């Protein structure tokens, strides 16, 4: 049984009944219903409780403007909070729940708030809950519990989302009559057209219109038009797609809902898609939103927008009431009376605030025998949980008057229309201003600041004929502006009884003044009433933004679509200023709420950020190496044997390398080829050391500074040829360093003939280190003499290794005899395996980043970003020897600023815990006096700290104020856990201080 369902008509499919649940109770609707229409069909009148006062609330609208029917849909991982029932398409098995109300939405204990309403006036929480201070947290818990609306899912989302970039000549936002005409006209001109509409079907107002076009029903004209549009290859039609954001340079975002309407348990598919559209021209055809009228108790269930009533009757074959009073200040609601009458429902009366009433439509209504009370207003509503009647009074148009009702009418539905507000949201988002139109009594789009134009009802054209006309003209113009020929289509003929005459009626006078009369609501969801706005003004919150923020007007999930204009009018009345002087508000995206998921698209989970892998990645995986994220790269952290833990594995790897041979994948280092006749000049401006004197085939350690004089990056520089150099950068710095080199080359020194090419991915780098590393390479079939005399430390040679051409660098980051093999990445895995084979007899041991860190720390080599931050200069690291004395380079000047010369700058030192066993905590601060009260002077911090298997005791590196002069002093390493470890300051070079091993 669907008591309010009409026997015939509508766009629902009576052959496809759908069962659904509302607050646990089962109901039935039809395919084509929205949840709202199905609820109304079943005569469900209370669908929610208001935010603050817990007043019972019913469905008001039929679209995005709905403030009350905000429901929780589904359960578990796919539950959806805060869904507007008016926009939820019904499917079989749909479960919906109300958000508020205990024990239930029909009987809510917290409705006691309503009788205390005056206590909960605007801003009341700013004035209380302050004393005693310690209780605020308890107050807040209560506030939080009662606030909020729907419930977030508590399980990860099983659905997918994706993005789609698109270009078009003409984007049409909204597929009502004007949008369709615009799209059709533009399509005929050959323009690429994309038309999107938030509803499940294109047509907008036409879907519920009883008017006729070209002698046919509006619906049949719609069908023809959609067919025509679908025949164009240059047209993309997106239903269920909301243009929610209009950004700079005509970039718009559309959220397309793909699966929600198919049922809640359909998971794993693309649920929503975001279209990211760059449009040459945009036609904004989003229509208009009907305004409620503001009178006492105008929020009672059964008070609905007249246009919504028409939609329910005509489109969904639902008559939301049995006896209807229509209250209006304009013509459009007359059509609602006609629609109701045609559907066989009783229309008690039309209450029209205007003296003259309606023209053509008035006559039509009277011909149907419907009573019209001109010059009358509805002042109050009776019935708490459902409208049971209205009080009507004669009114002469004096807005300040207090009036008493003279007539009462029984009814269970009050259809109201306070006029229309064009949906200027996207225009506003595009940066355009909205301007007040005195004739139409609404804000319309002002001058466009981007390539867009507003059309149809969205631009203040109320009649169907004018909507079709403006859509046609604006679609044509948009196509022309994007470079296409003018096309004129013949316009369909439409009878037009509609007049634009509207009487400004922003607040219906009541029998008491607005502070004392029953609440006259402006924003239903936030319980903002006229009295609240008046209070805000009284307290000095007079700017419209202050009023909104103080009263929460327009901050509901409908974002003020229903109430903002009425709220501004209330403010204007209160300040005694015209509405446009009170100001407008800037609308921000999103037009209607969009999921985080659709914004993120497929950049979640495994695809959140690329994992960069080296050519040896699979080999590392096969050895169960845990990986460390370094930037986007995955680097093997250590190579456990069996169930070996980090410490044991690292100790083993370190010892193996120091005693025999270790092998490491160093492919993630950035690698850049610098080529050209001015390479030396260029590099000398960037790096601190002498480049000109480097011999071909030799390598040097190089550092580069930012212009602020601080360490920027470091690496090896090799001179491959007179005019060709090879640079390495840190793993994390690769892209940044190349960009840094390019910006100087291109913007500051374009006269230099230099080319930079990244070969990071082309070359894989395999480091073989340890006293037996030379033998490993020899074993692997290295074509060149690797002995010290012919291949000295810090040099580079080309070679054949296991039949593959490679570049071998004799450099060392471990302090051992070591070789770094650069090989075309396509052959890297092959060479890696060859080296492993060749090293077998030396127990060659693969090692990861952790061992690399230990080995280099034993040598006192720094890692930028770990042992340095943005405040460390080369002098602080003791790298004076790296600095050219004679020439300028980037950052040099900054070092001679007063701060660069301070004696107490933090300098790199080594630390030993005095007990020789405690491994210091990396990051621990260094202080002099462990008993000092805070704030304790901080002398520096531990940057690196390891157990050194090779030395048999822990070591650490640190930055310490004036550290180099403090050698031998004892400080305390204070960690976050409160521990204080005494440490001695020593040289940062712990192992082979003379550097003999790397020269072996």
């Amino acid at each position, binding site marked *: 049984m669907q008591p309010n369902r009409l026997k015939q008509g509508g766009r629902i499919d009576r052959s496809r009944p759908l069962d659904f649940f509302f607050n646990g109770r089962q109901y039935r609707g039809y395919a084509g219903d929205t949840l709202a229409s199905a609820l109304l069909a079943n005569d469900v009148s209370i669908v929610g409780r208001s935010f603050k006062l817990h007043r019972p609330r019913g469905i008001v609208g039929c679209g995005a403007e709905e403030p009350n029917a905000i429901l929780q849909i589904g359960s578990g991982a796919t539950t959806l909070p805060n869904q507007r029932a008016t926009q939820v398409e019904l499917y079989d098995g749909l479960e919906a729940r109300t958000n508020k109300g205990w024990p239930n939405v029909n009987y809510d204990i917290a409705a006691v708030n309503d009788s205390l309403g005056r206590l909960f006036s605007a801003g009341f929480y700013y004035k209380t809950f302050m004393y005693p201070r310690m209780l605020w947290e308890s107050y807040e818990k209560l506030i939080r519990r009662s606030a909020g609306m729907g419930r977030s899912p508590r399980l990860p989302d099983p659905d997918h989302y994706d993005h789609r970039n698109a270009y078009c000549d003409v984007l049409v936002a909204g597929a009502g009559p004007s949008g369709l005409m615009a799209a059709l006209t533009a399509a005929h001109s050959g323009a690429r057209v994309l038309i999107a509409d938030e509803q499940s079907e294109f047509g907008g107002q036409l879907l519920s219109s009883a008017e006729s076009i070209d002698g046919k029903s509006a619906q049949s004209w719609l069908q023809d038009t959609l067919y025509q549009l679908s025949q164009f290859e240059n047209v993309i039609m997106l239903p269920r797609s909301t243009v929610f954001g209009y*950004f*700079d*340079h005509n*970039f718009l975002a559309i959220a397309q809902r793909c699966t929600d309407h198919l049922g809640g348990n359909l998971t794993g598919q693309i649920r929503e898609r975001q279209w990211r559209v*760059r449009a040459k021209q945009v036609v904004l055809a989003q229509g208009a939103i009907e305004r409620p009228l503001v009178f006492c108790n105008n929020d009672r269930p059964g008070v609905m927008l007249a246009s919504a009533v028409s939609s329910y009757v005509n489109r969904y074959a639902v008559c939301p009431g049995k006896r209807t009073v229509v209250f209006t200040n304009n013509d459009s609601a007359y059509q609602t009376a006609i629609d109701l009458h045609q559907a066989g429902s009783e229309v008690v009366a039309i209450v029209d605030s205007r003296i003259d009433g309606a023209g053509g439509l008035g006559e039509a209504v009277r011909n149907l025998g419907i009573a019209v009370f001109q010059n009358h207003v509805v002042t109050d509503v009776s019935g708490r949980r459902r409208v049971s009647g209205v009080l009507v009074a004669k009114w002469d148009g004096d807005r300040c008057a207090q009036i008493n009702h003279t007539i009462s009418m029984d009814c269970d539905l009050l259809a109201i229309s306070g006029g229309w507000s064009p949906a200027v949201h996207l225009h506003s988002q595009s940066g355009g201003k909205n301007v007040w139109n005195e004739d139409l009594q609404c804000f319309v789009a002002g001058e466009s600041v981007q390539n867009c134009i507003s059309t149809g009802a969205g631009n203040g054209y109320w009649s169907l004929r004018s909507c079709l006309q403006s859509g046609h003209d604006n679609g044509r113009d948009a196509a022309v502006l994007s470079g296409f020929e003018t096309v004129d289509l013949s316009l369909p003929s439409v009878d037009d009884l509609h007049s634009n005459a509207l009487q400004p009626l922003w607040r219906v006078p009541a029998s008491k003044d607005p502070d004392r009369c029953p609440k006259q609501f402006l924003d239903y969801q936030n319980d903002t009433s006229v009295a609240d706005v008046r209070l805000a003004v009284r307290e000095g919150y007079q700017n419209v933004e202050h009023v909104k923020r103080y009263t929460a007007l327009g901050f509901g999930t409908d974002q003020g679509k229903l109430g903002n204009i009425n709220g501004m009018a209330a403010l204007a009345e209160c300040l005694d200023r015209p509405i446009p002087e009170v100001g407008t508000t800037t609308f921000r995206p999103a037009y209607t709420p969009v999921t985080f998921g659709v914004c993120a698209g497929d950049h979640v989970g495994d695809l959140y950020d690329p994992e960069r892998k080296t050519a040896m990645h699979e080999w590392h995986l096969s050895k169960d190496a845990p990986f460390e994220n370094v930037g986007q790269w995955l680097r093997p952290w250590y190579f456990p044997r069996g169930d070996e833990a980090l410490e044991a594995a690292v100790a083993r790897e370190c010892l193996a390398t120091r005693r025999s041979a270790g092998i490491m994948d160093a492919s993630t280092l950035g690698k850049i080829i610098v080529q050209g006749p001015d390479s030396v000049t260029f590099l000398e401006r960037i790096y601190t050391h002498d480049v000109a004197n480097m011999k071909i085939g030799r390598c040097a350690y190089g550092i580069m500074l930012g212009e602020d004089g601080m360490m920027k990056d470091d690496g090896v520089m090799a001179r491959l040829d007179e005019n060709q150099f090879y640079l390495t950068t840190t793993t994390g710095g690769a892209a940044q360093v190349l960009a840094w080199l*390019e*910006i100087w080359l291109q913007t500051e020194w374009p006269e230099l003939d230099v080319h930079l090419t990244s070969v990071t991915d082309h070359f894989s780098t395999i480091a073989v280190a340890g006293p037996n590393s030379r033998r490993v390479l020899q074993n692997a079939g290295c074509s060149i003499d690797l002995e010290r005399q012919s291949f000295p430390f810090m040099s580079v040679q080309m070679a054949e290794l296991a039949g593959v051409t490679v570049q071998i660098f004799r450099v060392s980051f471990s302090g051992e005899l070591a070789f770094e093999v650069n090989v075309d990445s396509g052959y890297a895995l092959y060479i890696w395996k060859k080296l492993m084979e060749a090293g077998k007899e030396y127990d060659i041991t693969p090692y990861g980043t952790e061992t690399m860190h230990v080995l280099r720390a034993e040598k006192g080599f720094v890692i930028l970003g770990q042992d340095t931050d943005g405040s460390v200069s080369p002098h602080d690291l003791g790298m004076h020897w790296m600095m050219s004395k004679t020439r*300028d380079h980037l950052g040099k000047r900054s070092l001679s600023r007063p701060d660069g010369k301070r004696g107490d700058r933090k300098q790199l030192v080594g630390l030993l815990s005095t007990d020789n066993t405690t491994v210091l905590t990396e990051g621990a601060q260094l202080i002099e006096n462990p008993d000092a009260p805070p704030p304790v002077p901080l002398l520096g911090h531990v940057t690196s700290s390891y157990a050194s298997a090779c030395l048999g005791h822990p070591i650490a590196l640190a930055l310490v104020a004036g550290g180099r002069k403090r050698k031998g002093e004892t400080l305390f390493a204070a960690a976050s856990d409160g521990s204080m470890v005494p440490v001695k300051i020593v040289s940062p070079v712990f192992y082979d201080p003379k550097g003999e091993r790397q020269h072996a």
Partner: protein
Amino acid sequence: MFLIKCPFCGERAETEFSYGGEAGINRPLDPDALSDVEWADYLFMRKNPRGAHKELWNHAQGCRRWFGVERDTVSYRISRSFELPAGDKGP
């Protein structure tokens, strides 16, 4: 999302580009001759205007070229893109 015209590749989405800040800040030829105040002026002080701004952009995901853009910092409208002046080797 901006639509930026790379002088070499044409109009592309902002996500292909990286920003380089105010254009036309020339590195002093002889930094050692500058006072600390003058050096700080070069290093840190910026016009940061409200309105027309000449700035550097790099077509990072395209041709990797740096170029100039004149953009309004309030309306975000771009009035033109331009190639940076070619180098002059000088004496």
